[in-house]
């Protein structure tokens, strides 16, 4: 067995794709400026029927699920002691760092009274029954934990003399010694807030279609977050592998496939079983908007399930397809539950405006840019074999 070593990928940071992403970021910055100068209505189609739009649903509810790679891998590597997956740990963690940090950024754009945001941390304002408060505090804590977990990557990169001079070597030793505490908290917090993202919807009651409104929302959100976490790790590793010709992790993923397939099967059983138990199966086959969305969701979850239990799971191309389908299914589930299956009544409709979407896209572009910057300059990727130049 070889030790896991991480190496910066090296290479030019400012490449053509990087500049294109930067362009999108600039466009988003313009609209963000407008949002703060003229109000949210100037750039977004959110209304008092649909007060939650793409900024929250795409960047936070779906974005943090994409950021669950670190959570899902930590659970596997450190809690279930499947050490073979260790090479995937740090890139997954980095995905989490940006997924969550930029979800935080999106929230600050979305908060209607952002200058009061600090009230979330003031105990005398706290409203302990609020699911949103729990999500907010939990996510803030988790962002901190993610950066701390990632700190060793910075510290390894710093020259030894610099570290000694500022006492950073002691910090490095301290972090190393107590990393297991951070890891444990880093598994607990997403378990809490990802399930709570489901609990948030329990207040919706009659405004949400029974196809999505169930008391199992928290568990369904938790399972789908984990599954999406593994999906994102597969996707990320395949893309990085193809783009930078690093060693393939396909064999590792073939092993991971069983775990993911189990999660997906559990999710689908719970979803359909609960629906049948409550007597709403007819709604799924009603042939209307809600029913069809529900069936598409199920189909998108079934594709990865079948790929991952078949012999195809060892092939990178099929793994990639499975990961994409899984992420699409998980994203659609969240999008439906938060937006597309919500019926506020009174004739309200919602479709995001172009500027609103540009802000969402800009945030995602920033995420990818930072990810590229970090894997090129910091020891993130697994380098047991030297990456080809």
């Amino acid at each position, binding site marked *: 067995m070889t030790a896991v070593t991480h190496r910066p990928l090296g290479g030019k940071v400012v490449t053509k794709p990087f500049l294109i992403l930067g362009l999108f970021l600039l466009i988003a910055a313009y609209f963000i400026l407008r949002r703060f100068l003229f109000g949210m209505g100037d750039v977004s189609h959110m209304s008092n029927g649909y007060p939650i739009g793409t900024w929250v649903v795409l960047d936070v509810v779906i974005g943090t699920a994409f950021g669950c790679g670190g959570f899902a891998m930590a659970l596997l590597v450190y809690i279930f002691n499947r050490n073979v997956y260790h090479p995937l740990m740090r890139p997954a963690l980095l995905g989490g760092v940006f997924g969550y940090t930029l979800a935080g950024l999106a929230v600050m754009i979305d908060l209607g009274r952002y200058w009061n945001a600090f009230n979330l941390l003031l105990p005398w304002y706290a409203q302990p029954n609020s699911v949103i408060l729990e999500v907010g505090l939990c996510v803030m804590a988790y962002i901190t934990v993610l950066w701390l977990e990632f700190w060793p990557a910075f510290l390894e990169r710093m020259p030894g003399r610099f570290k000694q001079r500022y006492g950073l070597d002691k910090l490095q030793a301290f972090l190393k010694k107590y990393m*297991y505490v951070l890891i444990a908290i880093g598994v607990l917090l997403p378990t809490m807030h990802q399930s709570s993202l489901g609990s948030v919807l329990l207040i919706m009651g009659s405004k949400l279609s029974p196809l999505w409104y169930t008391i199992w929302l928290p568990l369904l959100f938790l399972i789908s977050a984990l599954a999406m976490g593994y999906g994102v790790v597969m996707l990320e590793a395949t893309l990085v592998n193809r783009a930078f010709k690093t060693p393939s992790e396909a064999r590792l993923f073939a092993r991971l496939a069983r775990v993911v397939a189990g999660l997906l099967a559990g999710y689908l059983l719970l979803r359909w079983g609960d629906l049948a138990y409550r007597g709403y199966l007819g709604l799924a086959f009603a042939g209307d908007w809600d029913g069809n969305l529900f069936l598409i969701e199920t189909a998108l979850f079934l594709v990865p399930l079948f790929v991952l239990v078949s012999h195809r799971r060892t092939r990178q191309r099929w793994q990639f397809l499975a990961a994409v389908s899984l992420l699409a299914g998980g994203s659609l589930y969240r999008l439906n539950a938060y937006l597309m299956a919500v019926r506020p009544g009174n004739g309200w409709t919602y479709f995001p405006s172009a500027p609103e979407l540009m802000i969402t896209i800009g945030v995602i572009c920033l995420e990818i840019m930072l990810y590229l910057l970090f894997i090129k300059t910091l020891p993130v990727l697994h380098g047991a074999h030297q990456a080809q130049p």
Partner: protein
Amino acid sequence: MGINRRQFLRGAVGAAATAAAAPIADAVPFDRREPKTLPPKAVGMLYDSTQCIGCKACVAACKEANGMPVEQPQRLADWNEGTWDTAEDISGKTLNVIRVYQNGAMTQKDREVDGYAFVKRHCLHCVDPSCISVCPVSAMRKDPVTGIVTHNPDACIGCRYCVYGCPFNVPQYQFDQPFGRIAKCQFCNHLQKQGKLPACCDVCPTGASLFGLVEDLQKEAERRMALKPGELYEFPRGKLGGDRSGQVAPVGEYQPHIYGETESGGTQVRYLTGVPHEKLGLPKLPDHSFAAVSEGMQHTLYKGMIAPLALLGGLVVLARRNVKSDEERHKDDEERPS
């Protein structure tokens, strides 16, 4: 009240973890939070749609009393120097509005077919409000005595979950403002503190909007329902039991249910209507608040923080062991001559 219909699995710590394996014997494997009860001196309003003449005096009075701006579509902005208020629904600029139901030839008031009817839209001041349950920073509060649901903009962070979660779509965020706030009827709390009536009830010429103690209003509503439709009755105006003279008018043909008595765990505003409630935009709701479902779930999972702490303990132990064993393996690798 207070009967736990779903007792089984009570106190099961970490229900979400175990429930997947447990047989689904009941749709709700946890208790809903106990329903909230009406505060001792709960004030409210009885809105009698059959007595409303649609004059919108209450809309104008509400704007004036609460300093809310005129609302109108862009094309009417210049008309009569922009003074004509034409709000179609409650919004960031309008806390109270009269809407009209129209059907077919609209020949008779308070009739479902070929008729029309008025309905008033504003906060219903729920007994068990969703907005309070979702608000992370206690910006929404319910007065422990009067039961009025108030909003504190200095606490509010503008997350808009009150807008999202309210079953009646009442709180309205001002999307057109750079520093928007949540607009919502606070039952003229500021006027009530001076001993005055809420503006809408104060100006209502027919007593369609009637202020009073919720318990008295409920009795008044039941009294009207017991009368024969068309019979003359002296409808109190302003405040129930106040010194104002009433308005004598024929009793309406009421729907058999007083809206707000049970909806969403009960509200402090009650409606009597001639047209079915759903037609007037008053949604069908269960007799419990969804806040009780949501809080029941949270209180089960996070009871005394026992489940999360136990989970954390387990995680720390496992992570410590596995990180250690991982390090030892690495040490072996490093010590091995290469």
